[in-house]
């Protein structure tokens, strides 16, 4: 079906993104809870998550100095934090709601029940002893939702846009996580702690992206920073690696052009070529781990550019046309296309 409304394509894309964002955050918090237990009672152990999503300023406005419980509230249950789990579930559901005539009933049913269950988490669900369990439930609901989508969604352009959103978010989240975690380790190494050699630290990182078993199978007994980073970036068989995501993205966008004749796909492919090139160069770079920050910066920028092209050619194409003819371009009402929390600031349903 190529007569998919542009607005639907955009909603499918954001449905995928918010779903993936929820999954990533829930898994991250689940692992952090177990990791944090018995190690530290200060907010410091949690404040790196504020760095991850670039949220320090917004957080301080409401909560002041970070403590474990306020960071948790901010990321799980604060509806005003548009990057929180409740806000992401809500955004995923709002997008799905506009898609109800397009997506299978089972998929809508799943997302609606999920939303109704977690829309307003009780304080009891967030206490220390329950938080890991709560995050695990949320993660499982996300997996179930992804599973229903996989099992029921018709494989036409609608599926492609849903997957594009999901995969871009996944790659972006991975890149952010690597960036923050490696910076954190280097800081600790500088202050002469056990630093990059901390076995537990890498274990947590791998678990927070569901890659622990896979990594150990490929690298029995080893856990050095360089091989962890390379595994998470380049392993073509790891479903959350950046290379895996970019390969899938290319495949999907090729399909849009080849199977459905969508010409705008050509422009999107050009941006994906940039990502591919960046990854090729990085895979041969001996200094990659030391230059991880600039690499990750570029990955995130390139993914942003891909999203921009999708918006220009598929989500708001009227504006693209009027740009060509020199007309005044009105600001679109699209959902923001960056990632992380700033990205969630506006919703198209205004």
């Amino acid at each position, binding site marked *: 079906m190529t007569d998919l409304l542009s607005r639907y394509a955009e909603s499918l894309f954001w449905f995928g993104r918010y779903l993936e964002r929820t999954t990533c955050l829930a898994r991250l918090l689940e692992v952090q809870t177990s990791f944090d237990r018995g190690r530290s009672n200060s907010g410091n152990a949690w404040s790196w998550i504020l760095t991850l999503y670039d949220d320090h300023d917004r957080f301080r406005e409401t909560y002041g100095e970070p403590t474990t419980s306020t960071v948790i509230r901010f990321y799980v249950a604060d509806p005003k934090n548009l990057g929180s789990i409740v806000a992401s579930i809500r955004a995923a559901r709002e997008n799905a709601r506009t898609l109800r*005539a397009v997506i299978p009933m089972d998929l809508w049913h799943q997302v*609606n029940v999920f939303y109704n269950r977690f829309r307003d988490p009780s304080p009891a669900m967030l206490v220390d002893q329950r938080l890991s369990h709560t995050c695990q439930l949320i993660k499982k609901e996300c997996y179930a939702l992804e599973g229903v989508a996989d099992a029921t969604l018709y494989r036409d352009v609608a599926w492609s*846009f849903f997957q594009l959103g999901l995969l871009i978010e996944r790659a972006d989240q991975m890149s952010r996580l690597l960036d923050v975690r490696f910076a954190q380790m280097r800081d600790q190494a500088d202050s002469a702690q056990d630093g990059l050699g901390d076995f537990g630290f890498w274990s947590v990182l791998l678990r927070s992206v569901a890659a622990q078993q896979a990594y150990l199978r490929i690298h029995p007994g080893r856990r050095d920073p360089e091989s962890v980073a390379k595994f998470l970036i380049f392993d073509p068989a790891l479903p959350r690696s950046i290379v895996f995501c970019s390969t899938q993205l290319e495949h999907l966008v090729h399909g849009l052009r080849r199977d459905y004749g969508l010409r705008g796909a050509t422009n999107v492919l050009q941006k994906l070529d940039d990502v591919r090139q960046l990854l090729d160069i990085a895979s041969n770079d001996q200094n990659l781990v030391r230059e991880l920050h600039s690499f990750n910066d570029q990955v995130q920028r390139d993914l942003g550019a891909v999203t921009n092209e999708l918006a220009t050619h598929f989500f708001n194409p009227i504006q693209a046309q009027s740009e060509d003819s020199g007309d005044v371009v009105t600001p679109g009402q699209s959902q923001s296309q960056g990632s992380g929390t700033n990205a969630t600031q506006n919703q198209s349903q205004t």
Partner: protein
Amino acid sequence: MPLKPLSEYDQNGFYCEMLGEAGATEAKLSQLWERLVSYDTQELEDRASEATGELLDLGITFTVYSERDAIDRILPFDIIPRVLSAADWQHIEAGVIQRVTALNLLLQDLYGDGKIVRDGVLPGELIYGNANFRKEMVGYQPPCGTFVHVAGVDLIRDDDGSFLVLEDNARTPSGVSYVVENRHLMQRAFPDLLAGYTVRSVSEYGERLHEKLSEVAPKNKDDPTVVLLSPGVFNSAYFEHIFLAREMGIPLVEGRDLTIKDDCVFMQTVAGMKRVDVIYRRIDDDFLDPDVFNPDSALGVRGLVRAVLAGNVCLANAIGTGVADDKAVYAYMPRIVQYYLGEEAILPNVETHICREPEALAYTLDNLDKLVVKPVGASGGYGIVIGPKASRAELEQCAAQLKAAPEEYISQPMINLSVSPTLTDDGVAPCHVDLRPFAVTGRETWVLPGGLTRVAMKRGSIIVNSSQGGGTKDTWVIDETSP
């Protein structure tokens, strides 16, 4: 407090949809009645609340927005069905088809030569002074001559069980999604109640609607592109818009998805602009086109009326049908049917006094405590004064309003709406019901078997509108021979 069991149900002297006329020796639907009585009231309650939970999960809801949150509400659903016999249905179906045919002929005439006015059957000021008469549409000839593609004719039942028309809805009647979803719900929650009955299916509504809408595509285009135009997620009937788009397999568009070029309508898709041939619009006339109607509307499409008049797109329902379902024009419907079809109306009106006529006004003022007074312009049950239930002060206020603007009102005798056994907070009670059958018209008219039964869930209330606390029931049209 224990719930009153079904066996203690009392129809309170009204015509009962399940038991028949008051005082009848045998229940009209004795077998179904026995089956229902055999349930424990608590079990009925349990199954009902299970069914209700399912409505929420499935999002068969309307959304109430507050500043902080959006709350999904379900339309109250009663699990005891309302049943129509095959003979009753035959009568209703014929009556509705006749009514819709007359409405379409009336609109062709009013936007054409206006013969019915010149012949003195309808007063001209009633039509041409009516806010819902759209002068922009004068001379417009829609495909197949059809103005009213989807109609909902509200029927009530008198003490002796005869059906009367209460209101014609010829603009954008809603509720059909509940007819279909209620049935699906019953099939899941009460398969044992349905067992053995041949209940006429309501599932093909989407298919039939799509077929009829395709028939009215401009220039007899084969395989036309049909879309449903909705005001968007904030509209209280949004679920129904989703339902209809889904059942027909067509895009659910909003005004911002459409553009007009050279008086043709296009929708923005990922593959570029795609031509649209038929629009089932669920937006009122006023909001359709800011160039012609309300200039502040952001819901519609600029230039849409021109595209319609150029014959490049067909709107369903056509613009300006509101003049025909007006409560004042309603009073003339029996004469309108006679005028165009040379037949008696199969479904009679409720006796109606048009207060713009001096004699009718005098009669209304003299009998205010016995009559129901309705403003002609309002819908949704607002502004209605029920004489026998009104206080002295309310009656005095009503009289003053009548004298000040008699043309704004009609009055009708108090009709005892039939009742149907309904599960309420204190057991099974006789609650008043009406019936809205849905008729779909392209070249010809098809009527969905059954329709929406609305039930006044408040004790003693006769106002069934959902905006006033009404609920719905599954409506069965059954074969006489079963079970």
